[in-house]
């Protein structure tokens, strides 16, 4: 199953550890994203896979063979760079053909593959254009075609969509996913954009300060964040302090004057974490007052002040009347929508 394997990989620059204890197995045809804020070590990890950097410790294996002993030029990986790094003195077709030339692919086969790959990324007819005469989106497609035409064992994408405007980025996300599905190329995407990671990936590796915070499907990482960092980084979330009282039976989860039956497990001070879209307005629950109400088209955003601090609530705009600013409300949620962590620590 494991196609690409990173085994306790670490990278140090001098005394500074940029990536530490990074272990991951990627299946064939899988789409994995490295997600994290800038400086979390995601690009460094990608560069170690590409071979532009050597890991300080650990092993990288592709189909069971050690990749770190292979020259970057011989690894046969396709890479799309953030800046695209197209060759400005070559036409689109020459850019795409470069990798095939290096592989000494016969001329007729080469031109056929270049034509087909450019057509696949939607650039048929742009063969003779120079990169500087193309839009950002078109350059991005040339970069993708250049990486794919060599039929790479792994496709590495380094923030490929971050230089595009929002609408184009969404289009490219869908297209990228379709192309990847059709070709079945194992793909690793580096991004700081959680939406991009979630809409594209089979699995997400959330990173912070050189370490893996969580590996999981987009749903897992969103619904069951393994740490405070993950829950804060992926989407909006409400955190507030509470205590679990085990002296009562059944145990009680208490925050101010609000209480609920406590789930099994934890005791003492805890952090309660709930996604804003999972909170509803009910007859019973945490007492709060609506401070501001913002209309955002398909949903309403409420900022509420409760006795446990500020709480954000998101309600679908389903046509139902919504509470007004200044109104006193009760915030309610299903017990399974709430996650509890020991206060200050991981789950």
């Amino acid at each position: 199953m494991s196609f690409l394997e990173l085994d306790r990989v670490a990278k140090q620059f001098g005394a500074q550890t940029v990536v530490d204890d990074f272990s991951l197995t990627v299946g064939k045809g899988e789409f994995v994203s490295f997600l994290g804020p800038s400086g979390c070590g995601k690009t460094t990890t990608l560069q170690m896979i590409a071979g532009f950097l050597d890991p300080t410790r650990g092993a990288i294996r592709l189909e069971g063979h050690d990749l770190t002993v292979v020259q970057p030029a011989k690894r046969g990986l396709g890479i799309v760079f953030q800046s695209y790094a197209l060759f400005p003195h070559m036409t689109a077709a020459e850019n795409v053909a470069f990798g095939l030339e290096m592989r000494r692919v016969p001329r007729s086969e080469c031109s056929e593959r270049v034509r087909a790959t450019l057509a696949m990324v939607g650039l048929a007819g742009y063969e003779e254009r120079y990169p500087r005469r193309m839009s950002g989106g078109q350059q991005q497609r040339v970069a993708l075609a250049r990486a794919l035409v060599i039929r790479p064992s792994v496709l590495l994408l380094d923030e490929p969509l971050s230089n595009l405007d929002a609408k184009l980025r969404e289009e490219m996300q869908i297209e990228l996913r379709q192309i990847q599905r059709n070709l079945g190329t194992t793909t690793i995407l580096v991004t700081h954009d959680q939406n991009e990671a979630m809409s594209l990936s089979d699995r997400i590796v959330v990173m912070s300060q050189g370490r893996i915070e969580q590996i999981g499907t987009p749903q897992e990482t969103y619904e069951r964040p393994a740490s405070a960092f993950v829950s804060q980084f992926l989407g909006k979330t409400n955190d507030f302090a509470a205590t679990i009282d085990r002296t009562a039976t059944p145990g009680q989860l208490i925050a101010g004057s609000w209480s609920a039956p406590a789930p099994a497990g934890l005791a003492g001070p805890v952090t309660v974490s709930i996604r804003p879209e999972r909170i509803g307005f009910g007859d019973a629950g945490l007492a709060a007052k609506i401070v501001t109400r913002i209309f955002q088209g398909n949903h309403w955003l409420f900022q509420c002040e409760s006795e446990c601090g500020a709480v954000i609530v998101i309600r679908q705009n389903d046509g139902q009347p919504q509470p007004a600013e200044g109104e006193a409300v009760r915030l309610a949620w299903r017990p399974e929508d709430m996650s509890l962590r020991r206060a200050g620590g991981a789950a």
Partner: protein
Amino acid sequence: MSAAPATDGRDARTAWLLTAPALMLFVGVLVIPLAMTVMLSFHDWGQYKGIEPVFILKNWHEVATDPYFAEMFWRTFRIALLTTLITAVLGAPEAYILNRMSGRWKSFFLLVILGPLLISVVARTLGWALLFGGNNGLVNKLLMSLGLIGSPLPFMFTETGIVIALAHVMMPFMVLSVWAALQRVDPQIENAALSLGAGPFTIIRRIVLPQIMPGVLSGAIIVFSLSASAFATPAIIGGRRLKVAATLAYDEFLNTLNWPLGAAVAVLLLVALVLIVVGSNALIERRYAEVFR
């Protein structure tokens, strides 16, 4: 931009007024002396009568027909061309290596390369003269002790010597020009080529060199025109025995006192240089128009 004609006129007047000081300086110190030099080249001159302000083609006829002048000009451009080639062949890799150096080393070596610009041309060339200095010069001693040559090579009063000294003087211009071109190259581009399977030599030849070529060529234009019109270096290394166009004009002016003939030589050098520079610039721009804009 659709300004009314009235304001257009005032804008133009303001523009003229603002540029007037610079324009007057330009006309006063460049255009007028140049025009006077051109006029001078058509005047007559005699050993005993001096300069006669008449309009004749005598000097131009002499420059055009006497093989002595042809030899001078060929030598001038041969030296300039060789100097340009040497600075390009050495300077482009130098700039490339410099660009890949990190922090402190980069600034140190940049200073070393720019060093020649901080020293007077005369002092620098006299330094070379000391190094060359006949059969006992340091360069010859070194080459002989290394066993590279059996007998001393003549450097002083030879084209070889002039080219070596000029190449040293001109190197910063080439390095800076290539350096500027390298700044525009995407730092990831070599990694991109590497990931596609290109070896280091292929990356240089197919990816880096084509992109810095405009820098090399504009550096070449600067070096060529400066070398062809250089005076101090050929004057000290070449002396009276090996004249180039600039030292020839100088000698006509100050030794023979044949100002009109010297003016003709100077004007011819200027015209030839302008033609070469403008011509090659147009060629370069046409060649790279598609790619670099």
